[in-house]
């Protein structure tokens, strides 16, 4: 984290446009930019209470863009103190010279192939192993309680985890799967077993897999204290009263623990009124983290069960991705429906396109706050749309002891550890200076079409942070009564971010910390 100690250059702007005027910025934002204008050329200092010291290099106008220097570690602090300010890194453009292709590795057996200890190093993704007849290993996945075979589990066996070399398959009705691993018995570095629902997903490390092996998964106990319940407990049924929340996702299935009070299917060409889950279950799980109304051990409870929950479906049926057009259409609709908070547990690596930035800015200018998942690319930079300066970007927090031993969550542990050494930001979470908050997102039990499931991801951390924000905002009648404009969303963001408590991680990992 040494890079964090060196100041970098950023451009500070109002939410939209380049000058703070009544239609795009709150008076507080205009006042802050004006205060910075007076600091041009002076030594670094704080221009507002709670804001970090910044050095102003240049100011376009009294209420216009500012080129400033500050430390990346202080970006989250600036965002918390001035949530209506858009922070954009200074970027330099260069001639677009096409990169020259270079070989990544030499295929196994090829002339000039690299060797180590007399063995050929095989290039991942280039050379394919010849299928050896009779070299499959057939084994069974069953429940740890009662031994019932589990159908439909995705099984991924790695013989070399670092290079992601292995084989995968799906269990049949007898809970059996056959993997062609090139031998009838094979040393496995990691074996992941992902059940669709009802069970914790399993991880077994460093063992020899042979035909006849049985891998056992732990059934979900709705009274189990996962990381969400460890940090937040079970909220009262009145938590989140008067907040309207939109979930932009795969749709939400009406489950016994969930009450959906309207929605919209934004998928081009599909029925606009079909905003139920598309079958993937992701949106239903996300919604349960926010608003499930069950009582353990007979059901599960979200963080803000009293919110008005609305479903905005952007993933089509049997389509892997969501169009940014459909996502923006859903966001516009959630804003016009009066949603106070919107959850976006989706994204991709890369920059935020102009239309997406405008839609998020439009939501902020209309009094709506957007929470977005940072992404699960194993600590790569925060993805889009979370990296948009007007969205709140959420990383995934976890804690040792909040999942069964032998579950996949064991493989997500990565330092640095927090002030409480059991806490850590998961290995899969994307991180960076855009992170605003962290939330529990590993081994989370929630609603799923037809039952319950355990899921991991910043997808789960995002609704955890939103649900905690809804709890806090429900008591802020003065903020919620403000006209639906930029000042309202700024006030919500500022209130929420200032309620976060650091857990001892660097700001790129936790932002301002976890809401409590």
């Amino acid at each position, binding site marked *: 984290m040494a890079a964090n100690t060196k100041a970098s250059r950023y451009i500070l702007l109002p939410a939209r446009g380049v000058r703070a005027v009544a*239609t795009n910025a709150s008076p507080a934002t205009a006042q802050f930019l004006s205060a910075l204008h007076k600091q041009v050329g002076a030594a670094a200092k704080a221009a507002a209470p709670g804001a970090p010291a910044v050095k102003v290099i240049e100011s376009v106008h009294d209420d216009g863009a500012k080129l400033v220097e500050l430390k990346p570690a202080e970006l989250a602090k600036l965002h918390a103190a001035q949530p209506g300010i858009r922070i954009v890194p200074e970027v330099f453009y260069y001639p677009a010279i096409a990169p020259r292709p270079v070989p990544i590795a030499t295929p*196994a057996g090829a002339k000039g192939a690299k060797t180590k200890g007399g063995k050929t190093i*095989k290039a*991942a*993704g280039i*050379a*394919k*192993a010849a299928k050896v007849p009779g070299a499959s290993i057939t084994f069974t996945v069953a429940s740890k309680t009662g031994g019932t075979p589990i159908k439909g589990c995705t099984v*991924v066996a790695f013989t070399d*985890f670092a*290079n*992601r*070399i*292995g*084989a995968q398959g799906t269990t049949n009705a007898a809970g059996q799967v056959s993997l062609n*691993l*090139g031998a009838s018995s*094979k040393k496995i570095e*990691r074996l*992941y077993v*992902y059940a669709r629902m009802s069970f914790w997903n399993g991880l077994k490390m460093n063992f020899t897999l042979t035909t006849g092996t049985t891998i056992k998964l732990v059934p979900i106990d709705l009274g189990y204290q996962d990381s969400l319940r460890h940090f937040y407990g079970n909220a009262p049924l009145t938590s989140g009263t008067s907040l309207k929340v939109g979930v932009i*996702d*795969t749709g939400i299935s009406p489950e016994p623990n969930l009450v959906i009070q309207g929605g919209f299917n934004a998928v*081009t*060409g599909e029925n606009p009124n079909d905003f139920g889950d598309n079958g*993937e279950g*992701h949106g239903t799980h996300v919604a349960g983290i926010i608003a499930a109304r069950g009582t353990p051990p007979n059901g599960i409870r979200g963080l803000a069960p009293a919110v008005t929950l609305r479903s905005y479906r952007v*993933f089509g049926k049997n389509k*892997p*991705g*969501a*169009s*940014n*057009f459909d*996502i*923006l*259409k859903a966001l*516009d*609709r959630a804003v*016009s429906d009066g949603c106070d908070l919107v959850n976006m*547990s*989706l*994204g*991709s690596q890369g920059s935020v*396109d*102009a*239309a997406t930035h*405008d*839609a998020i800015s*439009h939501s902020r200018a209309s009094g709506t706050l957007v929470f977005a*998942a940072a992404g*699960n*690319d194993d600590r790569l930079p925060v*993805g*889009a*749309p979370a990296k948009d300066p007007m969205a709140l970007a959420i990383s995934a927090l976890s804690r040792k002891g909040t999942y069964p031993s032998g579950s996949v969550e064991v493989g*997500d542990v990565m330092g640095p550890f927090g002030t409480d050494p059991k806490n850590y930001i998961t290995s899969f979470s994307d991180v960076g200076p855009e992170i605003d908050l962290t939330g529990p997102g590993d081994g989370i039990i929630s609603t799923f079409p037809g039952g319950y499931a355990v899921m*991991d*991801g910043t*997808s789960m951390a995002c609704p955890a942070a939103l649900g905690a924000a809804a709890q806090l905002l429900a008591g802020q009648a003065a903020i919620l009564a403000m006209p639906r404009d930029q000042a309202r969303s700024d006030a919500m963001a500022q209130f929420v971010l200032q309620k976060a408590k650091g857990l001892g991680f660097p700001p790129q990992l936790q932002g301002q910390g976890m809401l409590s």
Partner: protein
Amino acid sequence: MGTRGRFILRYTGAGPPLAAHVTRLRNVPGTKVLDESDRMLLVEGDQEDLEATTRGLDGWVLTPERTMSIPDPRKKIKDEPG
């Protein structure tokens, strides 16, 4: 002749877009409107033609359509064992 593809035309100005602007965008030669909402059109057409038209209309931006996915933390294989 530029690249054909699917693009989002989004109005970023205050209030609703001018109907005349929407009509002009709808009628860019070779452009097919696939979907629309209050502030956007999803179109299939020629990028250069759409860019040229958008440049002359205040508050409109042109963005290629892209897909986003559910962030999936599940581990995946890249290759089979040799």
